[in-house]
C-alpha cells in the first residue's frame, strides 16, 4: 500500500497546491464540520433554498394536476411520444455521472485531487438521479402501476420484457442509484463519527451516532474499510460507463432515423461526463466561496475539472461529427433527410445551431489557462455547457421522432407549460436537496483531507 502511494509522479507545474498551507488535522476537522455544527448559514444559502423550495412546489402542484388530468397536459403526441420527460431523464442521468466518475474512476487512477470534491460530487449524483427518476414515473402515465416494471411474482404470472432496453434502463438506473448511495454512505461513516464526537449530547448527536455505526477508527477496521472502498470503486467504474450506455440503447436499439447508430454509447457516456463536470463546477464554484472552502478546493481542482470538461467536450464534438458522417455514409434517404431537417428545415433548426454553439464552440475557451482558473468565466462556461447538453438531448429526442419513415406519420412537438413546470420543478428539487446536504452533512470528506494533509506533510504528494 505504501509503495502504491509513493509511485505517484510529481505534478508538473500545478497551478495551486491540493490544499493551502497552515492547516492541521484539527483545523481541517473544524473547517469542514463547523458548517454543520456551528456556522450560521450564509445568506446566499437561504436565497438558494428559497428558490429551490419555490420551484419544488411548482413541481408538486404541476404533478398533482398532471395526475388528476392525465398526460394530455403535456405536449407529447403521436409520433413524438417522448418529449421533455425523456429529455430531462437523459439530461439528469448524464449530470449524475460526474459524481461516481470522480469517486470511482479517479480513485482507481490514484488522482489525489478527487479527495476534496468527491463527497460533493457524489451527493450531486444522488440528487441528479432522483430528479431523473421522477420523469419515467410521470411519463408512464399511470404512476400507481409503476411497480409493473419490476420482476415480482404476481398472480398473472407475467414478467417484464427482459429483452427490452427500457427494462435494462430500470435495472441500470436503480442499480446506479443504490450503488452510488452505498458508496457515498461508506465514505461518510468515519466523518459521521467525527460529527458525533464534536457534538454536544442530544438528539442530533444520537442521530449522527446511529449512522456512524459505532465507528472508532480501529486499524483493523480501517484496513477492511479501505479494501471495501476500493472494491466499491472498482465495481462503480464499469457501472458508470454501463448506465449511460444502456440509456443510449433506448435510442440506438430502435430503428428510428438518427437513433440507430453505433456511436451512441460512447458518445452518450462522454456527454454524460461532460455535463456532469459542468454541473459539479456550477454548484461547487459558489459553494467554495460561500462556505469558506477555498483552502481545500483550490484553483488546482477547478483547473483539473475544466480540463476533463474540455477533453470530454471534444469527444462529444467528435460524436456530432460521426452522426453527420454516418447519416451521409449510410446512403439511407431517411437518415440523410432526417439530418437535413435537423440542421436546416425543422422549426428546431435554431436549437441545433444553439447546441453547436454551446457544446462545440464554448469548450474551446478552456484551452486558455486563465479561463480554467478564474472562477467567474468558468462558472459561466459551465452553465452554457449545461444548457447545451440539455439542447442536445432535445434535438436527439424530438427531431428524430417527428420525422420517421412515413410522411403520413410525421408530426411535431410543442412543449406546454406543464412540460416546463416539471422541468424547472426538478431543478428545484435538486437545489433543495443540495442545500439540505451542505447543511446536514460534511460537504468534503474530512478523513480523506486528513490523509491528504498527512501525505503532503511527508512530501509524498503536493
Amino acid at each position, binding site marked *: *500500500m*505504501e509503495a502504491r*502511494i509513493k509511485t505517484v509522479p510529481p505534478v508538473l507545474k500545478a497551478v495551486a497546491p491540493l490544499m493551502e498551507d497552515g492547516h*492541521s*488535522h*484539527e483545523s481541517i*476537522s473544524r473547517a469542514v464540520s463547523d458548517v454543520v455544527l456551528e456556522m450560521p448559514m450564509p445568506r446566499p444559502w437561504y436565497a438558494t433554498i428559497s428558490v429551490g423550495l419555490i420551484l419544488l412546489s411548482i413541481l408538486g402542484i404541476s404533478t398533482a394536476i398532471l395526475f388528476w388530468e392525465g398526460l394530455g397536459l403535456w405536449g407529447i403526441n403521436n409520433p413524438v411520444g417522448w418529449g421533455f420527460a425523456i429529455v430531462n431523464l437523459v439530461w439528469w442521468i448524464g449530470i449524475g455521472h460526474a459524481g461516481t466518475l470522480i469517486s470511482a474512476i479517479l480513485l482507481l487512477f490514484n488522482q489525489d485531487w478527487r479527495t476534496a470534491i468527491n463527497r460533493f460530487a457524489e451527493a450531486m449524483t444522488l440528487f441528479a438521479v432522483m430528479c431523473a427518476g421522477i420523469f419515467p414515473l410521470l411519463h408512464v402515465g399511470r404512476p400507481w402501476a409503476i411497480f409493473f416494471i419490476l*420482476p415480482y411474482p404476481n398472480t398473472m*404470472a*407475467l*414478467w417484464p420484457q*427482459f*429483452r427490452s*432496453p427500457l*427494462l*435494462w434502463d430500470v*435495472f*441500470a438506473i436503480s*442499480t446506479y442509484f*443504490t*450503488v452510488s448511495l*452505498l*458508496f457515498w*454512505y*461508506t465514505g461518510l461513516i*468515519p466523518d459521521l*463519527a*467525527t460529527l*458525533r*464526537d*464534536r457534538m454536544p449530547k442530544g438528539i442530533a448527536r444520537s442521530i449522527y451516532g446511529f449512522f456512524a*455505526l*459505532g*465507528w*472508532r*477508527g*480501529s*486499524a*483493523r*477496521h*480501517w*484496513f*477492511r*474499510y*479501505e*479494501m*471495501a472502498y476500493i*472494491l*466499491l470503486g472498482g*465495481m*462503480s467504474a*464499469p*457501472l458508470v460507463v*454501463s448506465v449511460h450506455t444502456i440509456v443510449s*440503447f433506448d435510442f440506438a436499439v430502435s430503428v428510428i432515423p438518427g437513433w440507430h447508430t453505433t456511436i451512441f454509447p460512447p458518445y452518450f457516456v462522454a456527454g454524460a461526463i461532460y455535463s456532469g463536470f459542468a454541473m459539479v463546477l456550477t454548484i461547487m464554484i459558489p459553494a467554495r466561496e460561500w462556505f469558506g472552502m477555498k483552502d481545500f478546493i483550490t484553483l488546482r481542482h477547478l483547473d483539473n475539472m475544466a480540463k476533463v470538461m474540455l477533453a470530454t467536450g471534444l469527444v462529444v464534438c467528435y460524436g456530432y461529427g460521426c452522426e453527420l458522417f454516418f447519416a451521409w455514409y449510410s446512403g439511407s434517404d431517411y437518415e440523410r433527410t432526417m439530418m437535413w431537417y435537423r440542421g436546416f428545415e425543422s422549426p428546431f433548426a435554431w436549437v441545433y445551431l444553439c447546441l453547436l454553439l454551446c457544446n462545440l464552440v464554448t469548450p474551446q475557451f478552456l484551452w486558455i489557462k486563465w479561463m480554467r482558473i478564474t472562477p467567474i468565466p468558468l462558472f459561466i462556461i459551465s452553465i452554457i455547457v449545461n444548457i447545451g447538453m440539455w439542447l442536445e438531448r432535445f434535438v436527439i429526442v424530438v427531431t428524430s421522432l417527428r420525422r420517421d419513415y412515413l410522411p403520413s406519420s410525421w408530426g411535431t412537438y410543442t412543449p406546454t407549460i406543464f412540460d416546463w413546470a416539471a422541468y424547472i420543478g426538478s431543478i428545484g428539487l435538486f437545489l433543495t436537496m443540495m442545500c439540505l446536504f451542505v447543511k446536514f452533512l460534511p460537504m468534503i470528506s474530512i*478523513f480523506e483531507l*486528513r*490523509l491528504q494533509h*498527512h501525505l503532503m506533510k*511527508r512530501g509524498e504528494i503536493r
Partner: protein
Amino acid sequence: MAHQEHHTDEAQVFGLIAEFDEADQLLSAASKAYAAGYRTMDAYSPFPIHGLSEAIGFNKTYVSLFTLIGGLSGTATAIFMQWFASSIHYPYHIGGKPFFSWPSFMPITFELTILFGAFSALGSMLLLNGLPRHHHPVFNAKRFERASNDGFFLCIEQTDVQYDKEKTTAFLQGLNPVEVSEVLD
C-alpha cells in the same frame, strides 16, 4: 465482547492506552509493541494509515472474497431469473428467436452482479468489523474523541498474555506518548 467472560475484579480494566500526536509515532509504536510480543492490541487513528494494521499483525481481510461471492451470486440470480421467466414460466415466440436469448440478458446480468457485489462489499466490511455496535470500552479512554479528529491511540488490551499493569505501562511510556492511561471496561 471476549473480555467480559473473564469477570474478576481486575477485569474491570479493558487495557492500557497510549495517546500520540503524530501518525508516524503511532506507526512506530505499533511496530515496537508487536516486536515486544504484544498481540491483543489495536491502534486507533482519524484516517487510514498505510501499514498500521500490518504493524499490529493484521493483514488479511476477507472482504474481497465476500464481494466476489456476492457479485457472482448476483450473476447467477440474474441469469436464473431471466432464463426461468423467458424459457419456463412465460415463454413466448418473438420472431423465431430462442427463448433463452442470452445476449439480450447481459445488461441486467451485469447490473445485478454489481448491485449484489456492492452490498456484499459494504455488508462484509461492517460484519467483519463487528459494526454497527452500540458501545465499546475504548470510548471510555481519556480524550478518545480525538481519535476521530487529530489523536492517535495504541491500546494494549488486558486479555493479552503479556499484559502486566506495571510492565506494560512502562513499555508504553517508553514510546514517548502524550499520556498513558488505563481504560475501564
